[in-house]
């Protein structure tokens, strides 16, 4: 039993990454109707950003946790202004291809500089070792990652429900035309929201650096699962993406325990089942894509 609880805990930690990535993807999709394929690449850049700051400037993990997401959010905004926004009036496929192309370019740029290898990145000294969680010992860093992911998701939730900006974003997500006709300038929020979503991906990347391989392909390996998470949660549903992120994380951990051979496909089986039962995903609405 303890074992199962510990596995569920493992799943929550893995789910934290999925939730942060899915959240950013959901916010961007909600506001722009853009499926951002480059999300995984920015997750990867987040990890490499932390590595670069450490090796080139001696900047530690904690500072990197602030600096890297902020810097990449700015890059994201520039990207939105320069490219993404020119294609939003066209078929979604164009932006899908654009962001896919950006992913390939970013991955290859990193490969040119660092080769197709993992780079070393250590845990912050403060979080070395493990903590006693009552039932079992658990690595401190992973406990931190889980706590951080949960707090961050809650903060975003508060931001969206309790502030004026959040209200506008939600309104624009649900009824863009109506919001516009009420005199709200939806357009000016598009770029910051894109940057914010990218920043979340970068943040997940920085968090991943000490516990996962800092590798040019780390994002593309993960992004497919994140897409499945977003679809299960319901396209454009912010709440759904977070719940599905943690849920899928736990499902994978338990799947690994009982049917390891199936765990890779488990998320897609779940996706198929959810779509059969609720074609809009767990928390999605009808007509998001029309």
């Amino acid at each position: 039993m303890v074992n199962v609880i510990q596995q569920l805990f493992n799943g929550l930690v893995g789910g934290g990454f999925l939730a942060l990535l899915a959240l950013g993807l959901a916010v961007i999709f909600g506001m722009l109707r853009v499926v951002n394929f480059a999300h995984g690449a920015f997750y990867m850049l987040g990890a490499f950003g932390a590595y670069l700051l450490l090796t080139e400037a001696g900047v530690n993990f904690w500072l990197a946790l602030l600096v890297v997401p902020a810097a990449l959010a700015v890059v994201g905004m520039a990207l939105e202004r320069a490219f993404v926004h020119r294609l939003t009036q066209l078929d979604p496929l164009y932006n899908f291809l654009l962001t896919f192309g950006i992913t390939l370019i970013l991955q290859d740029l990193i490969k040119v500089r660092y080769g197709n290898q993992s780079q070393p990145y250590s845990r912050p000294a403060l979080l070395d070792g493990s903590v006693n969680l009552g039932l079992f010992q658990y690595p401190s860093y992973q406990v931190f990652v889980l706590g951080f992911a949960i707090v961050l998701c809650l903060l975003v939730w508060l931001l969206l429900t309790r502030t004026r900006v959040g209200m506008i974003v939600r309104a624009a997500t649900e009824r863009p035309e109506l919001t516009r006709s009420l005199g709200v300038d939806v357009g000016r929020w598009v770029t910051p929201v894109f940057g914010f979503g990218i920043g979340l991906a970068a943040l997940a990347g920085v968090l991943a650096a000490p516990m996962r391989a800092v590798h040019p392909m780390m994002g593309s390996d993960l992004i497919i699962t994140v897409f499945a998470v977003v679809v299960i949660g319901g396209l454009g549903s912010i709440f759904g993406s977070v719940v599905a992120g943690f849920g899928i994380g736990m499902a994978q951990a338990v799947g690994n325990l009982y049917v390891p051979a199936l765990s890779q496909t488990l998320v897609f089986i779940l996706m198929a089942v959810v779509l059969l039962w609720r074609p809009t995903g767990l928390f999605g609405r009808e007509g998001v894509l029309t």
Partner: protein
Amino acid sequence: MREVTRRSAAVLATGTLLLSACGQGGPSDDGGEISNGKVVLGLINDQSDVYAELSGENSVEAVRMAVEDFQEDNPDSAIGEIEVVDADHQNKPDVANSKAAELYDQRQADVILDVPTSSAALAVANVANQKQKIHMNVTAATTELTGESCNKYTFDYAYDTYMLAHGTGTTVTEKGAENWYIVYPDYAFGQDMESSFSTAIEEAGGQVVESDPTPFPNDNFSTFLVKAPDLDPAPDVIGTMQAGGDLVNLVKQYNEFNLADKGVDLAVGLMFITDIHSLGVEAFSGVTFTDAWYWDYDETNRRWADEFQERTGTRPSFAHAGNYSAALQYLEAVERAGTDDSDAVVAELEGYEFDDVFARNGKIRAEDHRVVHDAYLARVKEPDEVSEEWDYEEIVSTIPADEAFAPVEDTECEMG
């Protein structure tokens, strides 16, 4: 979303087709002792992806070193000009297939060396057989090259899954780690390694408590790591068959869960020195694995490694040294035969015994074209034992050439 995905898949598929452009065949041989008046050594390998560091362009450089060394040692050689050509197969069998045809036919390669990725290697071996040209494989792990899929023109040079499994599996078990928990990536290489390891462990008197396939690629191994100490009986060692980025993930998380302190050691199925270099020696210290060659094993190796470093800026992996050796042995066989005619060179290679910088007690078996040589059981050093960059391995023991590889009686190879 679904619509978008479907159409993207169509676009991607078209792109893939465009990328896998084909080479065309053409006439090559014009008879004579050395065809075209020159010997052409070709390499096909991965120059941009996962295996680029451990072999890649630096293997091409290693082959150039072999050419220079050969010419220096044989100033009166009958071989006139020697040319080195190479191609990137991106680890795709279809690309490897067309590149091999292109190298043999258009660029007049007499031999193709290297070829990492088992599926790509089998494709090249097939082309070699059709065109009756030689392929000396260095970097692919599959035993099939010298087993079911063997042919008269293909040789397997550096290592295979049997060598890795019997080196690490047998030795670690005999040293007292009897209970194993194996985790392996769920694809051909991982499955092959899992079965080779299980056989080796059981033959040595140990047991595999459990073995789990893991997703590939995978970034979260905590399920398997947490479960390990609670297995019954508790495993003494986790044998991981992961490679590349997945191996790094697993090792990072193995360290996080402090399994070494819980009495569960880690043995790695396949590891290159470039893996240790990329993650730092701390992450791997204490890990046991089998190496086909190590640059700091003795003075001979070190001298060669120094020269290699001067030319490439980095220390050689066993793949680099293996390519050097294969090129050298090929050239010497051509020299002995007095021709680059494939059948004559194969006859010279078969049964040949030699020692060079890579292969100690080397022998090219005529029965299955397995090149046997000494292999090494290595342990990754502790950080305070490291005295210079790339000083990562302690060679624990040497596995004699005739024990390192599968016995020739067991081969499934039938030379046609």
